[in-house]
């Protein structure tokens, strides 16, 4: 009987409230689980990639002038031809294999440093907007992982990547045409050497997966391809303790840990964890508090009934347990949210991570975890409700029936009324209605606060991908960054700004050492391509390079550094103290910039050669002198593309956050109006006009709403300073949750718009309301 009463209360008298809470919980559960599953999936992708990537490191042996001379004489190639042509082109023209040139060098390195290696070759070209990469078969390291079929043996056979097979619905025996030549699919595979097929040979430009294709032919067909080729050697350590190969021996060496493909994923996971940490915690706390307040309100609504039933002889536990169906019914939206999240995860993951290789992992949430969450939620709601009812039931039945709580005009109410005393009767009446029902007043404040925090957070998050890309574009004004192989004179390169890199360490707070790169910039006034801007003031601080080092915001936050602080940097040789001269706009990276003069004065050593240089024009230098040239535009595009997906997340979060905030606001206004419905009807029966009633009943709640928004602003600023600052320390980037005037105005505008929408709905309801029978029959 009691349970029937409870259900009637939900489904008949409070349909809107019950429906809104369900939607609120559904959205929260969906959002929380989607973020958790996404993170699980990203970690799975990373684990898969780590497992697929069979190499420990990538490298290219360094050829000395003497090596090249020997090579030239062995193969009867003139030194002029070597000077003029691309080295790969020479090998191709003379039908010389890489083994011929690097063979002896590699054997020596393998023996000396304890590893095995294999050359990795791929050619790439573009056809009709599609980026093709043709990978040569590997025998020892980075062997293809065949999902179906086998290696291409015949000239017309082809192995394609899983992604393309899925996109184009290809299977073994399917026909595949490249440059008007038809191939038959002999195998579908993953290519461990190219776990991210979308990256250019510089490792910086990221192609869209939709237009990327990886294939493999037999060796004859591969060699016949007259296309640009990328080669590197893949190494696997055979000794237990890998040794450091000196830079004199190798052109470059890229450890697995330094692999951009894997690092990008690490960054994504790091960002995801942070977003999950912040969003889920904030979301759950807001929705949790709102749910608690709504449950208290539901219980308060039933106090008269409890009083009557208690008076009739019902026992406390019978009354307490009669509330169980309400709590148990809330399991439904939580479970539905988890289910929806599992069903939609593959699509959402695809949208959020369109730079990753499909097919995406589709890890549903662990059943045990899901059941545990639902159980904990249910137990929590039941325990909280039972406790509140128990506390109320300590009163005797008469007091429960009399609603004595409203009689108390406590200090807070008195202060509020005095503070907001108005001359106009209606304004005063409005204040009395609002302030004397502090619970509803607080509920509306909280909904304004929740809406404010939700929108501020979403807006803060949506800004950071742009901020990351913009800071790069604003500060790094070079067109090309060239990394030099050795002590090379760059005076021949027009308008170049040289830089010198020194890899050092600093001691971090947790007694570990962190690697840093100290970059000393050539400070000639003519060619300065790097201009730093202060993180806080946005003022140009480039001239501070001569007074110390300029660090980025992430680094400053991680090590609690501020301008003027001293930082000790060291290597095996010596320690040096450097002064923090500025904090720039960058949000990631362990690079510390200074001027060449500061470096020379502080480290007491002359910079005699540069590690690389920045330039406006593509450098024309001997190929042996430049290890790599990075195009600034590609770098910028890569940063943009990497973070672009997070705009989708933050956009979706903003939308869901606003829906959630709107629901919270609607619930609170609904409760406010429902609580005052009797007053409204009475005033109407007395002859108060609709506009007078609106003034004293609905419009008044705009003030607690604004109070809530006002509280949300400093709260959010504090939260972003403390919480995001702390979280950024463990992540590898700084999440700038900035609150600008525009954000504040937007939050206020959106909240007022929401309020206006909700208020209009209720005003219409009040206008139409002629249900005086309700009043007369005392049904409220």
């Amino acid at each position, binding site marked *: 009987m009691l349970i029937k009463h409870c259900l009637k209360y939900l489904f008949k008298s409070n349909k809107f409230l019950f429906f809104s809470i369900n939607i609120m919980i559904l959205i929260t559960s969906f959002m929380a689980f989607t973020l958790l599953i996404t993170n699980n999936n990203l970690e799975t992708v990373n684990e898969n990639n780590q497992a697929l990537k069979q190499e420990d490191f990538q490298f290219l042996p360094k050829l000395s002038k003497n090596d090249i001379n020997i090579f030239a004489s062995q193969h009867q190639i003139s030194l002029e031809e070597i000077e003029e042509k691309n080295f790969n082109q020479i090998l191709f023209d003379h039908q010389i294999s890489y083994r011929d040139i690097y063979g002896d060098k590699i054997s020596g390195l393998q023996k000396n440093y304890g590893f095995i290696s294999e050359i990795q070759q791929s050619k790439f070209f573009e056809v009709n907007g599609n980026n093709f990469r043709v990978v040569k078969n590997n025998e020892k390291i980075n062997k293809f992982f065949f999902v179906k079929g086998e290696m291409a043996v015949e000239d017309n056979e082809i192995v394609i990547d899983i992604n393309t097979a899925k996109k184009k619905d290809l299977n073994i025996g399917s026909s595949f045409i490249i440059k008007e030549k038809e191939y038959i699919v002999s195998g579908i595979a993953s290519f461990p050497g190219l776990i991210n097929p979308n990256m250019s040979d510089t490792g910086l430009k990221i192609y869209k997966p939709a237009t990327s294709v990886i294939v493999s032919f037999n060796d004859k067909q591969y060699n016949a391809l007259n296309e640009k080729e990328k080669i590197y050697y893949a190494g696997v350590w055979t000794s237990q303790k890998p040794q450091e190969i000196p830079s004199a021996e190798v052109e470059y060496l890229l450890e697995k840990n330094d692999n951009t493909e894997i690092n990008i994923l690490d960054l994504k996971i790091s960002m995801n964890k942070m977003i999950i940490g912040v969003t889920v915690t904030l979301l759950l706390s807001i929705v949790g508090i709102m749910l608690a307040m709504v449950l208290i309100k539901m219980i308060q609504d039933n106090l008269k009934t409890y009083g009557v039933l208690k008076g009739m002889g019902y026992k406390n536990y019978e009354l307490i347990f009669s509330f169980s169906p309400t709590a148990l019914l809330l399991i439904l939206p939580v479970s539905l949210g988890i289910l929806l999240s599992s069903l939609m995860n593959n699509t959402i993951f695809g949208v959020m991570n369109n730079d990753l290789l499909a097919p995406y992992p589709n890890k549903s949430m662990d059943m045990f975890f899901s059941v545990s969450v639902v159980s904990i939620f249910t137990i929590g709601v039941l325990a909280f409700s039972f406790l509140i009812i128990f506390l109320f039931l300590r009163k005797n039945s008469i007091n429960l029936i009399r*609603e004595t709580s409203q009689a108390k005009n406590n200090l807070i109410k008195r202060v509020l009324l005095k503070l907001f005393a108005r001359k106009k009767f209606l304004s005063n009446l409005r204040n009395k209605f609002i302030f004397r029902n502090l619970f509803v007043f607080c509920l509306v404040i909280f909904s304004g606060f929740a809406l404010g925090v939700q929108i501020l957070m979403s807006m803060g998050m949506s800004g950071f991908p742009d901020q990351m890309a913009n800071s790069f574009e604003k500060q790094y004004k070079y067109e090309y960054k060239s990394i030099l192989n050795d002590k090379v004179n760059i005076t021949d390169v027009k308008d170049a700004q040289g830089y010198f890199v020194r890899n050092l360490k600093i001691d971090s707070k947790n007694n570990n050492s962190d690697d840093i790169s100290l970059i000393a910039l050539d400070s000639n006034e003519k060619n300065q391509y790097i201009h730093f801007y202060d993180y806080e003031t946005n003022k140009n601080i480039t001239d501070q390079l001569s007074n110390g080092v300029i660090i980025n915001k992430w680094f400053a936050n991680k090590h609690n550094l501020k301008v003027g602080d001293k930082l000790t940097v060291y290597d095996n040789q010596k320690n040096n103290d450097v002064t923090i001269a500025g904090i720039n706009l960058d949000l990631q990276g362990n690079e510390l910039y200074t001027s060449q003069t500061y470096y020379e004065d502080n480290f007491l050593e002359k910079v005699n050669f540069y590690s690389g240089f920045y330039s406006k024009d593509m450098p024309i230098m001997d190929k042996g002198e430049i290890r790599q040239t990075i195009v600034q535009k590609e770098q910028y595009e890569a940063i943009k593309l990497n973070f672009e997906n997070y705009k989708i997340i933050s956009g979706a979060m903003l939308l869901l956050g606003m829906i959630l905030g709107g629901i919270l606001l609607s619930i609170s206004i609904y409760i406010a109006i429902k609580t005052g419905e009797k007053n409204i009807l009475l005033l109407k029966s007395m002859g108060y006009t609709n506009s007078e009633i609106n003034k004293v009943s609905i419009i008044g709640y705009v003030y607690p709403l604004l109070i809530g928004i006002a509280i949300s602003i400093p709260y959010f600023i504090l939260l972003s300073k403390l919480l995001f600052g702390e979280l950024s320390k463990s992540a590898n980037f700084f999440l700038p949750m900035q609150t600008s005037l525009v954000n504040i105005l937007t939050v206020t505008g959106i909240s007022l718009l929401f309020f206006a929408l909700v208020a209009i709905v209720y005003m219409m309801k009040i206008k139409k309301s002629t249900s005086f029978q309700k009043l*007369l029959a*005392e049904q409220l």
Partner: protein
Amino acid sequence: MYIIQGLSKSYKNGEIINQVLKGIDLNIETGEFITILGPSGSGKSTFLNILGGLDTDFQGKVKFFDKDLATFNEKQMVKFRRDNVSFIFQEYHLLPTLTVYENVQVGQYLSVSKSSIDDILEKVGLAEHKNKYPSQLSGGQKQRVAIARAIIKNPKVIFCDEPTGALDSSTAKIIMSILLNMNKENNITVILITHNTELANLSNKVVYVVDGEIDSVKVVENPLSLEKIVW
């Protein structure tokens, strides 16, 4: 004051049509004290709601000083209630978040003359309770607040729906005496619904409503004084 002709009202509950009022004709003069008697469900409250402008969905004519309530739009109906009518309910319907004084003030706001709240509270014997909240008052005190709130509006007519129904006899006497005084001193028309046939002896006119129709109208030439009523 009121000319009521062929007043009918029906409720539709699914397929079933419930005829609550069936062609009521009645004239009410200014200053009258009218009692409406009748069994539960006879349509008394519905009749009262229509006269007071709370229920606008009816058939027939209800003229108030020659103006037909049926032709009033919402705005005119609000003005009609604001300027002319007050209600006193059996369940008091005070605003729980307002004090006694403030509850009366809600009525005062609607009147043009702005009578003194303190004077009215003095009249109904609640001067010392003016800062209390409704939940701190007895039933009789609450009803006196409701009366004070009703009369401060200076209405032309007060509708009382079982105002003493929830009160003991001595409290009910006090309430009735206030209503009678108000009727006599201020010439306010009082229309009272009650089950108590004894109370009918206090009024000028007694209307018996049975099953949605007026069974009889009895004009009382010499109403009894309050002291002579047996409760």
